[in-house]
């Protein structure tokens, strides 16, 4: 079976903060990483390939340096990696992003399954996976923690609040991978060496024959008009003393606040 995995390069959010004076992101040397859920997506793709044969192709839409993320995907064991990059794509919201990725996927030789991460660490919307599925008119299963493929059908176990739901879909289909799905493998030295030699083609707007009106800012209905740091509206009240004493104080406070 032929699998396409969509991966996004993201700034490591643990090192992003807001400058309280200027209300802007402070980055200073924030490293770029593969979106962590996308590593789970790659892993499940590779496992399915090991079981059923076929190929795993990694796609990423982004600026030229997103190639690093694709190189890492190759090192983990993906067969091909394609960078979807064009100035015309910059500023894409999730509608435009899913359009571009879907157009690129149409250009890939063949696909039975598309795997995305549950959500991206920076934009955090979880909208691109379902968006691609709708663009391509195929079924989807979000929050996947387990998959079983049988001929042209896939059974997906989904992690929901307090329950698991298992659904069956016809291939081709799209799933979004939860972290609980697997533990992504580390790229071995051989993989890293082999990945270094591989060519990563760049597909532009023209290559994927996309409509420029549907890409980038012009294809994006949403506009970010302002960013600001999260407000903290409360002060911390410190409770001090012996364990018994503070515990009693706390219970009283929580009762007063009607939290217990």
């Amino acid at each position, binding site marked *: 079976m032929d699998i396409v995995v969509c991966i996004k390069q993201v700034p490591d*959010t643990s090192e992003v903060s807001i400058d309280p004076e200027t209300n802007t992101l402070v980055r200073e040397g924030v490293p770029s990483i593969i979106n962590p859920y996308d590593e789970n997506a790659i892993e499940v793709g590779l496992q399915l390939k090991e079981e059923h044969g076929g190929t795993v192709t990694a796609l990423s839409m982004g600026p030229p340096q997103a190639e690093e993320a694709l190189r890492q995907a190759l090192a983990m064991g993906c067969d091909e990696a394609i960078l979807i990059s064009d100035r015309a794509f910059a500023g894409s919201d999730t509608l435009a992003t899913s359009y571009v990725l879907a157009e690129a996927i149409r250009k890939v030789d063949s696909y039975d399954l598309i795997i995305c991460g549950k959500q991206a660490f920076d934009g955090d919307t979880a909208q691109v996976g379902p968006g691609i599925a709708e663009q391509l008119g195929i079924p989807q299963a979000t929050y996947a923690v387990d998959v079983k493929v049988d001929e042209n059908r896939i059974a997906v176990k989904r992690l929901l609040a307090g329950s698991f739901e298992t659904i069956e879909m016809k291939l081709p289909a799209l799933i979004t991978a939860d972290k609980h799905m697997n533990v992504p493998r580390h790229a071995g030295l051989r993989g890293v060496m082999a990945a270094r030699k591989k060519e990563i083609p760049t597909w532009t707007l023209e290559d994927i024959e996309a409509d420029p009106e549907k890409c980038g*800012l012009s294809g994006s209905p949403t506009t970010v008009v302002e960013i*600001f740091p999260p407000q903290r509206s409360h002060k*911390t009240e410190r409770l001090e003393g012996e364990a018994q004493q503070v515990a009693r104080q706390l219970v009283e406070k929580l009762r007063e606040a009607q939290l217990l």
Partner: protein
Amino acid sequence: MNIYIDAEKCTGCQLCVKACPYSAIQMAEGLATITEACTLCGGCVSVCPVDAIIWEAPAVEEVDTSDYQGVWVIGEVGEDGLAGVTWELLGKGRELAEDLNTELSLVVLGDEAGELAQKAAQSGPDRVFYAEDPALACYRTGTYTDVISGLINKHKPEIVLFGATEQGRDLAPRIAVRIKTGLTADCTGLEIDPEERLLVQTRPAFGGNIMARIITRNHRPQMATVRPRVMQRLQSQPEHGAEIVEVPVSFNETSIMTRIIDIAHDEAAGQVNLQDAEIIVSGGRGLKKPENFAIIRELADALGAVVGASRPTVDDGWIAPYHQVGQTGSTVQPRLYIACGISGAVQHLAGMSGADCIVAINSDPAAPIFEVAHYGIVGDVFEVVPALTEIVREELGSG
């Protein structure tokens, strides 16, 4: 390029270089230049002290949006009747509808949607659309997308709200793509800009490290998923009868793309419902050993709470994975969150900083968790937690 730096104005102060999360600004000959890496996120624009960063918004073509009227809430069905989040959306929806001087409608789908519609009609919305069919008994992406997209295309609401729940986040992006409009994810604030009659949507991004305000200027409807437990529920208005509209539907089971094979409430596999929990007691590495999670469980039992955990305790197998709270675990919004022996790393905070009240118990007075806590106890978890359990048992008479 839609963003560039005015070389005449730039003083070379480098503030923008630090502000860009994508390392897209470089200094060349003392001036800032924006490179290909730019994603047009806008993060740098306001930091420049001399307004040298020019952001050219795409030409605004005037779109006639006046055909679109009304605020819609897409209902979700819970165990008994409409889910809590639906009442919250109706509460917010009512406010928005008043500000816009328009009507509030609710959409319910299900195998017994008619009955739910009757009940809901007594308590707030001006109109209830319902579609009833056995094929709609359980939420499925395809069927729900078909019915709701059809309704939106036909009736043209100006605003459509979904819960940012598993269902809403699965469904809304499909509908947005089908009807080709914008969708803002996981909103924590919604208000109307009266001059432009626009919905201003506020949401956290970058794991909760920043907030963004987002608008959908030229497309209708303006759609958003809204985080549960943030908005005030609609107070029921019994005298207010709504118009009830049945939506005719028919399905051919063989043409539906998915089939639900199984739904398991799998407590044995360690599955827990953190998302809907009112109270969560979480343990971290400060517990030192896996067996010490027992003190967390005891407190949780006494409080009728659900047990949460930080990631290292999960990674080290101290507790089942589904207990994890944080950026790569569950995002939770309880009324009360008690963090025991958790340092408060940003990835943990990303999952729980939305709690109404946070209590931190940590031996390190400088632990970052105290910065978000409402009540902070500097102390040893092995003393404070059992003491709390005891007092809670005494006071609440449980356990």
